[in-house]
């Protein structure tokens, strides 16, 4: 059993199940993300762990202690709220010291600890500022410092980066990861941003309509999504409907090599391939030929729409300073043999 264990945790609001039979075991020091679209129950799960929402049934165990019916102020967990929820009438130092004050830590020890934690989140020198005088990123650091100052066994992050602009968000991702590793605090982060979840978590828990659908390391989740939903939610995916035939794909009469699968012969099947796994090559030398219909320049890469006999395929080509691809060009497409996967039976037979 893990350090933090959720056992068939369920929350119902009337007939609606916000979270259904969630079983999750988190190891000590692990960074786990709960990933899913809004309304999938990930925030409800976090609030149940925090003690802000009472579970309908199931158990929450922390290091062998049953937390299920413990009041939030007795759990001693650190929580970073989506809105940061800083105390606007207290200075940065007073905000951070609040948890220690509640624990009746004496003044000298408190000041020393606040100083350490502010150094950890790189806010030294900001002690006397008030939250309204801070930028979004700084507010977030204060929220993290305030949660970490009490040395919580578990740190809960509720969409910690969603209020930051894109550039700062990327910076703070790595900052969060650095802080988490240097303190070794077991962390659970809720997010709807797959890039965020993949980049900094040890494991990602994908949630869909109140249920957990896949728990995996980021790389394995990306490469082997368990459901069609996950494959389109995590990263971009080309999906082509065809038929499983002779151990490979038959898409609109085009035979393509495909990763092995347990599909039976002649089953209508959805095939999937990631845009970045496809490379451009000379016509006739790849698996399939096509014509570029649209070329979008993204700075670090080109996103190309290529019309082929098997259908429209999106290709992501890194920008290496070569001749830019233009709409109207005839190209060949090639990919490693097993990049094309049979995802499952086609939703609509083709």
């Amino acid at each position, binding site marked *: 059993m893990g350090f933090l264990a959720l056992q068939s945790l369920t929350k119902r609001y009337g007939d609606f199940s916000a979270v259904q039979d969630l079983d999750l075991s988190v190891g000590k020091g692990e960074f786990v993300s709960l990933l899913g679209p809004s309304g999938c129950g990930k925030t409800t799960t976090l609030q149940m762990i*925090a*003690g*802000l929402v009472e579970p309908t049934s199931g158990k929450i165990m922390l290091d062998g202690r049953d937390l299920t019916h413990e*009041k*939030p*102020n*007795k*759990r*001693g*967990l*650190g*929580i970073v*709220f*989506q*809105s940061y*929820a*800083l*105390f*606007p*009438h*207290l200075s940065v130092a007073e905000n951070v010291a*609040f*948890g220690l004050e*509640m*624990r009746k830590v004496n003044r000298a020890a408190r000041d020393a600890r606040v100083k350490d934690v502010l150094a950890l989140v790189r806010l030294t020198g900001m002690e006397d500022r*008030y939250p*309204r005088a801070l930028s979004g990123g700084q507010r977030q650091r204060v929220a993290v410092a*305030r949660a970490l100052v*009490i040395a919580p066994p578990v740190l809960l992050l509720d969409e910690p980066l969603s209020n930051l602009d894109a550039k700062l968000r990327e910076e703070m991702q790595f900052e969060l990861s650095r802080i988490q590793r240097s303190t070794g605090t077991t962390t659970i982060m809720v997010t709807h941003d797959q890039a965020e979840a993949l980049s900094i978590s040890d494991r990602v828990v994908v949630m869909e309509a109140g249920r957990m659908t896949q728990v995996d390391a980021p790389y394995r989740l990306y490469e082997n999504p368990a459901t069609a939903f996950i494959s389109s939610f995590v990263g971009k995916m080309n999906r082509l409907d065809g038929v499983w035939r002779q151990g490979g794909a038959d898409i609109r009469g085009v035979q393509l090599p495909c990763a092995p699968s347990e599909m039976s012969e002649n089953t209508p099947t959805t095939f999937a391939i990631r845009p970045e796994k496809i490379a451009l090559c000379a016509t006739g030398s790849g698996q399939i030929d096509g014509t570029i219909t649209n070329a979008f320049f993204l700075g670090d890469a080109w996103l190309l729409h290529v019309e082929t006999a098997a259908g429209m395929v999106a290709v992501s080509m890194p920008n290496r300073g070569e001749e830019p691809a233009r709409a109207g060009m005839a190209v060949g497409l090639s990919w490693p043999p097993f990049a094309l996967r049979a995802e499952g039976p086609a939703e609509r037979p083709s």
Partner: protein
Amino acid sequence: MTTNRVTPWLLVAPGAVLFLGLVLVPLVLTGVLSLHGYNHTTGIQPDFTLAHYRAVLSDDYYLGIFWRTFRIAALTTLICALIGAPEAYILSRMRDPWRSVFLLVIIGPLLVSVVVRAFGWSMLLGSSGLVNQAMQALGLPSTRLLYTETAIVIALVHVMLPFMAIPVWTSLQKLDPAVEAAALTLGASPFTALRRVVMPQVTMGMLSGSLIVFGLSASAFAIPGLLGGRRLKMAATLVYDEYMHELNWPLGATIALLVLIANLVIMLAYNRAVEARARRTLG
């Protein structure tokens, strides 16, 4: 180009005329009136004198009434804050439809005339009223409530409560509910979270509520007039008596102006003291 220079003046004209006509002119007239002499046999004199100001400020009778007015208004404000703030907090934690129902209960009294409510209280507090009957039934001696300061304060609190509850409720609406939750998760008890985190943030609401309640209480007329009786006077009833019974209009005008000035000074000082502190931290 000329229209551009005229337009702003035209735009402020209606408001300016209203303000000049309804506030400034009567105020100046009252000020002029207060400087005229008065004679009981011949009425208002054409000469100018400061005698009324000297008379009011050196007479214990008037100073006593001013002090009572201040005391009653301050006490009403304090009790309104003690009842109104928790009332607003409970209201903000309610869910619809109960919230709408109780908001109506709080605002409801404003729809009934103050005079009607004052008569209601005089029936409840009278020597054979409901309150005294209840006290007798419990074996307590009957007390005189009507025509006392207690009666005035009780009725004023009843009338003024919405003016405290609503500003506090408004500032509670602006509060991020996660802030209170954050305090709880950091180990604060619900009461500590309320005291250390919620209370300081509704200071501004309580401040504006206090100013409204204090101002209205200090100049209240119907309640002290009907529940204070003929002898227990407050500033507004005193002014009324000077005008309507003594017919000494200049003296009445003097008292009215002095009360206005005192009220302004107290409210501005209070505002500065509390707001400066709140602004520094809340911005």
